[in-house]
């Protein structure tokens, strides 16, 4: 077993442990902290896959923005949640069964794929994948249209979030 495999197995165990703790914790702030551990593990996996740019983006966008947003939302909606006696609904046994079946089905299916045993081709030493990714995102014969659509989507989400979360004028006058 090579050192890099040891790193992978340790990271994978950390991710799966953190994911398990996340879905089973009653306290949502703890769940959000476990979510951060899992997201950081995924960043390590990206480094192992030689996608350094995505690892940086993972830390910036997921841990720096999304997880912090989650914690903010948990703290803003704390009214009755912390006193709630049960955190899972009645059908959680079915949910667990379905998730386990799905996992085993996926693993059995991917074991039958012929591509599963392809070794990773070595990336050329002088190859700059970050540069290539940047070129691919703005080049007309690659991904410029999805890139622009994504920017419009982010703008729409920004405006939509503001409109949805803003208190309504009637409510505001009631509160006074």
């Amino acid at each position, binding site marked *: 077993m090579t050192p*890099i495999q040891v790193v*992978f*197995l340790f990271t*994978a165990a950390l*991710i*799966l442990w953190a*994911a398990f703790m996340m*879905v089973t914790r009653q306290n*949502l702030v703890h769940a959000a902290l476990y*979510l951060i551990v899992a*997201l950081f593990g*995924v960043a390590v*996996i*990206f480094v192992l*896959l030689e996608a350094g*740019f*995505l690892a940086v983006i993972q830390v910036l*966008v*997921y841990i720096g*923005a*999304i997880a912090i*947003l989650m914690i*903010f939302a*948990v703290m803003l*909606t704390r*009214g*009755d*949640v912390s006193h*709630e006696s*049960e*955190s*899972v*609904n009645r*059908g*959680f046994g079915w949910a667990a069964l379905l*998730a*386990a079946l*799905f*996992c085993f089905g*996926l693993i059995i299916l*991917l074991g039958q794929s012929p591509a*599963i045993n*392809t070794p*990773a*081709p070595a990336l050329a030493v002088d190859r700059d*994948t970050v540069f*290539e990714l940047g*070129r*691919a995102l703005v080049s007309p014969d690659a*991904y410029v249209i*999805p890139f622009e659509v*994504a920017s419009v*989507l*982010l703008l*729409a*989400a920004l405006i*939509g*979030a503001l409109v*949805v*979360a803003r208190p309504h004028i009637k409510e505001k006058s009631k509160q006074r």
Partner: protein
Amino acid sequence: MIPLSWYLTLAAGLFSFGLYGVLARKNAIAILMGVELMLNAVNINLVAFWRYLTSDSMNGQAFAVMVFAVAAAEVAVGLALVISVYRRRKTVSADEINLMKW
């Protein structure tokens, strides 16, 4: 060298935990966290297939970047909806938000 199947197995496990979180949790924010786990599992798969099968082009990584953008948009709108619902109903429990339930 790490076999491709290890990455895919990890992603399958992570996706299943996210699926369980989405299906079983009551709190709407916990459901959104489960969705985040599922999106991350998909991203691991995309980057792993890029590295092992199509590393001569950048398609896999470009798709992963799109998934990042969509995840950010999804969580912003989702949490705004949760806060709006909380402001009106004083609850974020998914089984009490049943105004539109048939």
